[in-house]
């Protein structure tokens, strides 16, 4: 902040010189030469930009291209950057064959979709309730709750994996429900994991809805549920979509919990687990592996393009404002 005070002062001087330069544009020779120099000087910048672009895109490109190459072009030392005879055979094998004996791709896709969509829907509902509480009410445990969310968000699943596994085994025994070896346990964990970040993201959206709107609706005789659904929901919906997509991507990519919870129950495997299993058994089949990797990536890419901006602001939460 002190930087602002110290350095804004010379600004008018700069503006004055700037206009003087613009006024002297008639002597164009020097100005043009300067323009060329500037353009020349920006060449390295463009080159750096191209390098960053290639570095970012190339592995993805290589994944897709390998998936499109016939087996003969994969099993060779003569790797080409373009496929000579592109083919969809690997995609065909992934989509219509059996990645794991007895189970096909569509079942795994169904498992993944079911567990992620259901977890996101439940998470969104619970988060919205909590976000309303945090944004609209002052209560004694409010700050404690917020700090709790921040801490939980940070403690990684990788550290807790053993105790979570045992916890769910014991929960299964106590409740008589089978929570491991099928999708129900995963569903519960993914819902819980999505809560902290979703609540924190939604909180800002709820707070941005003017309280007067709700009060006006209440004066007009709307009950709390009507206010919630007809006034709050439409205004919070964009935030809900962004937070839900964020939760979707997290759950869609989740690996270690699925790995420990599902064990050998291959019927219930999610897509990442299927891919890892397939890689473990057929580690040299790079065509299908890359085709399946591509299929795993596509939904995330689409969603990413959709929420990209909000993702940054959601994660750095206000830090940009300084």
């Amino acid at each position: 902040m002190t930087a602002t005070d110290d350095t804004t002062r010379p600004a008018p001087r700069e503006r004055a010189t700037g206009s003087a330069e613009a006024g002297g544009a008639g002597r164009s020779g020097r100005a043009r030469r300067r323009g060329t120099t500037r353009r020349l000087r920006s060449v390295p910048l463009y080159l750096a930009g191209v390098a960053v672009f290639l570095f970012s895109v190339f592995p993805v490109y290589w994944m897709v291209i390998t998936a499109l190459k016939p087996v003969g072009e994969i099993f060779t030392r003569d790797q080409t950057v373009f496929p000579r005879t592109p083919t969809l055979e690997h995609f065909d094998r992934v989509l219509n064959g059996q990645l794991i004996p007895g189970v096909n791709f569509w079942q795994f896709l169904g498992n993944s979709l079911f567990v992620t969509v259901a977890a996101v829907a439940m998470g969104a509902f619970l988060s919205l309730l909590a976000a309303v509480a945090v944004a609209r009410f002052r209560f004694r445990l409010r700050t404690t709750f917020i700090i709790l969310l921040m801490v939980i968000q940070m403690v990684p699943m990788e550290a807790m994996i053993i105790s979570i596994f045992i916890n769910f085994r014991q929960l299964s025994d106590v409740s008589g429900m089978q929570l491991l070896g099928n999708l129900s346990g995963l569903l519960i964990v993914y819902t819980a994991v999505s809560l902290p970040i979703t609540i924190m993201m939604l909180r800002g959206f709820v707070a941005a809805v003017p309280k007067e709107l709700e009060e006006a609706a209440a004066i007009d005789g709307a009950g709390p549920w009507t206010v919630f659904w007809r006034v709050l929901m439409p205004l919070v919906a964009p935030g809900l979509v962004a937070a839900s997509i964020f939760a979707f991507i997290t759950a869609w990519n989740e690996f270690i919990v699925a790995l420990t919870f599902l064990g050998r129950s291959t019927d219930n495997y999610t897509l990442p687990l299927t891919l890892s299993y397939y890689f473990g058994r057929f580690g040299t089949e790079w065509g299908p592996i890359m085709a399946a990797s591509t299929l795993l990536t596509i939904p995330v890419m689409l969603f990413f393009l959709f929420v990209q901006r909000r993702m940054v602001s959601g994660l750095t939460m206000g830090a940009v404002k300084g």
Partner: protein
Amino acid sequence: MPQTVEPAAEREAERPVRAPVTEPAPRRRKFPTPYLLIAPALILLAIVLLWPIVQMVWYSLTSFTTRNLLPNQPGPAWNGFAHYQSLLTDPEFWAILRNTVVVCTLMVGITMVLGTLVGLLLHKLPNWFSGIVALGMMLAWATPALSASLVFRWLFLPERGLVNVALDGLPDWLVGDGWLEYNWFLEPLSLFSILITVIVWQSFPFVAVSVLAGLKSIPHELYEAARMDGASAWKAFWNVTFPMLRPLFALLLVLQIIWDLRVFTQLYILANSFQNKDVYLLSYYIYQQGFSASPANYGMGSAIAVVMTVMILAVTAYYLRIMIRQGETR
């Protein structure tokens, strides 16, 4: 908490709407509603994520193995600090801890520096061009960890991987020979190099895009003023950009450390086995103790997990400080 919920529900039903209309102040006294609203989320979090943290500490002090999970078996026996003692005297653990810290530091350092440089670059480039570059970066960012790890394993595959083929194609006096058959995934140095590359590849876009957003928020006059005062680009960065974006950098640093400490999926695919303890990181070690070692040693795994959690919580404390300063907890 659950006890306060019951009477809360009734009172809420009695006078749902009137309170906010007449006077806003009674909200402060009307505790039940907010507690009712956070209760479902809180209960779920408590059962699924909080209780296991407590359990983790308890298990680390017991000799918990798979046997104790079988029906009609006694619970795990108290073991004191034996696990911690054997960890602290075990050179293998210290090597893994050291590797984790070194690898994580490199990941975070490279990601932050590269991300910041790219952010600055995007800021300097014209909009149309930086838009294209950012779109490309989005692809790297969005690629699931599993897909990314598999692609990098394929790129560095002995015999046929593109990197090996390309290195083999380069003149021997430049890079040496024998690259074609070189197996990157056996030795810690080469394996960790690839691991760091994967992580940096996936995480620098987030840093770059955040820094870019931050840069756009800095008033342009500050840079013009710095230039008039004869400051070089280097000085302008350290005297204008960095102080202005300090909270952002602090936050990015914390997030990166926490995300990179937990790296598991990428290592699981790249190492592709639990045989070589030289290439373990903490999270990998925890998983191995709990689910790959035979018999599974839950007690020891939990002790390692406690060590990792303490490291994470130390960083989280710093994160909380930033958040509280920014008023995010208010």
